[in-house]
């Protein structure tokens, strides 16, 4: 894109809160159910049904807000957002408008252009709509299992300056939500969704251009590419003297371009008003306590602690803090006494190779206990790195102890100094010719002695200790 133009992006993220039931009724939220089995009078919008708010959804929303440094308001209000759409059975969505749950936070990013702080304007709670399948002989088919599932909508200020920055922001935001157990971070399944507001302006300008909303961006890569494609389109329009229309567009990854989604229709008039069925939400001390109770360390805090406090390289720290289960694995190994740097080098390659990550869950083929033993065996000199990798393959999927296996094979280090000293004395006493050669200056003979010691212990002696013990004795003047 021309260097004379600047891209301006703000993102709206919808993150499904990990509750068992919907926001205003007791229907389950589990994914993958057959169509229209997780529905009731409330989420179908049947006349006379009344909403009953889910406490856990509020707690998770407050926890997300606290983790993102937003100010949680003591009182917020659910409002009706009116519009007609077949997947919205009531004819309105229950959301928050003038008085959201929380406002004014920030998220710090490391971008290729250096650190950047993005302002978070607000976090509010709302219910999801249903799911539609189009193209069924002129019909659309509506499944209302998702209708009423609790969402946190998190709105950033237009602080992002490229598609790449937007993708970086989304990853960082997802990491925070996933680490707090608030959301499973799954873009493909739609439990973490993103709309992007994109505009362009001349470099140096501080007024915002006309913005276009990009909908349904379901991968980090598409977010980046869609924003880049849309910015190119807008610049081309403006350079040709045309204007950008404020509209909603979608991204076609095959063609790498955006297309108008809704066409020119009447501007939305949502006529928000406080939902008469739902008095103001009061976040009292008990709710705050419940939210704080589950509040864990943020990925950024973990990375800082590991790199600065434990000397873990930054790249390894990023990988270890990329998922809560991986971070837990590493922390468990540390608690068991694993060396931080060895564990940080081992886990991203040897443990993650066989790991399966699915949303918030992860399955590892080895345990932190096994890895801690393997690393200790390497540190003690019992195993080479290669041997440790082979031994890990043997114990994967079992609860076998690597140390027990190594010991069972006679793989152990004799580091008993008295026993090795006696052995060295014996070797020296029985090798007068070699001793004499050494003392005449043939230092290479030391290697022969070490070799003998290793042979006698079948490789179990600690070679560094043996070398020291032999040198001490051989360097002593003949008595």
């Amino acid at each position: 894109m021309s260097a004379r133009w600047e891209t301006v992006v703000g993102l709206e993220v919808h993150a499904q809160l990990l509750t068992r039931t919907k926001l205003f009724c007791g229907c389950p939220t589990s994914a993958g159910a057959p169509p229209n089995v997780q529905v009731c009078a409330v989420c179908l919008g049947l006349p006379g049904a009344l909403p009953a708010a889910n406490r856990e959804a509020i707690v998770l929303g407050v926890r997300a807000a606290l983790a993102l440094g937003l100010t949680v308001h003591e009182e917020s209000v659910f409002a009706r957002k009116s519009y007609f759409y077949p997947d919205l059975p009531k004819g309105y969505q229950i959301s928050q408008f003038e008085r959201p749950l929380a406002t004014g936070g920030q998220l710090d990013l490391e971008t290729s252009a250096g650190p950047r702080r993005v302002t978070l304007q607000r976090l509010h709670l709302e219910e999801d709509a249903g799911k539609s399948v189009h193209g069924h002989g002129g019909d659309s088919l509506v499944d209302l299992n998702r209708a009423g599932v609790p969402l946190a909508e998190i709105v950033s200020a237009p602080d992002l300056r490229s598609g790449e920055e937007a993708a970086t922001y989304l990853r960082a935001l997802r990491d925070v939500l996933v680490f707090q157990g608030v959301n499973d971070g799954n873009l493909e399944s739609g439990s973490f969704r993103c709309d992007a507001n994109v505009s362009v302006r001349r470099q140096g300008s501080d007024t915002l251009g006309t913005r276009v909303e990009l909908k349904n961006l379901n991968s980090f890569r598409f977010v980046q590419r869609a924003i880049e494609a849309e910015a190119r389109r807008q610049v081309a329009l403006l350079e040709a003297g045309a204007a950008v229309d404020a509209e909603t567009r979608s991204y076609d990854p095959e063609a790498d371009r955006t297309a108008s989604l809704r066409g020119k229709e009447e501007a939305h008039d949502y006529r928000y008003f406080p939902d008469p069925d739902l008095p103001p939400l009061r976040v009292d001390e008990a709710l705050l306590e419940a939210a704080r109770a589950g509040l864990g360390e943020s990925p950024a805090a973990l990375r800082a602690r590991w790199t600065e406090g434990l000397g873990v390289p930054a790249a390894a720290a990023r990988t270890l803090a990329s998922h809560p289960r991986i971070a837990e694995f590493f922390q468990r190994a540390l608690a068991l006494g694993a060396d931080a740097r060895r564990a940080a080098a081992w886990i991203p390659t040897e443990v993650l190779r066989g790991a399966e990550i699915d949303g918030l869950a992860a399955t590892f083929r080895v345990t932190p206990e096994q890895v801690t033993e393997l690393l200790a065996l390497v540190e003690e000199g019992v195993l080479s790195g290669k041997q440790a990798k082979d031994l890990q393959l043997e114990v994967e999927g079992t609860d076998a102890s690597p140390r027990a296996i190594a010991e069972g094979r006679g793989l152990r280090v004799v580091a008993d100094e008295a026993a090795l000293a006696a052995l060295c004395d014996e070797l020296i006493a029985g090798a007068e010719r070699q001793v004499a050669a050494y003392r005449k200056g043939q230092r290479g003979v030391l290697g022969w002695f070490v070799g003998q010691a290793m042979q006698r212990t079948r490789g179990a002696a600690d070679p560094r200790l043996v070398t020291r013990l032999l040198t001490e004795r051989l360097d002593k003047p003949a008595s």
Partner: protein
Amino acid sequence: MSLDRETVARVARLARIELSDSELEGLVRDLERIVAYVDEIGALPLEAVPPTAHAPGATLPLRPDAPLPCLDREVALAEAPRQAESAFAVPEFVTE
């Protein structure tokens, strides 16, 4: 405050209510009377009273996150004008 014909037509459109010209005329007259009645509140000295959307002091009751029985699908779909493949069938609303 008075209501003109365009405003009423617009509200009807937003509410997806189709009105004939004579119905619209009747509604303009009815709504004007209703709005005029509500306007009487505007004559009261209410500067010190904050807007009240709910009964004062009421707060949102919260329920535990425990599943409750859902409707049987047959029951859920029974009132729908049309259904197909266990879903509510509606005229296609997005062409892709």
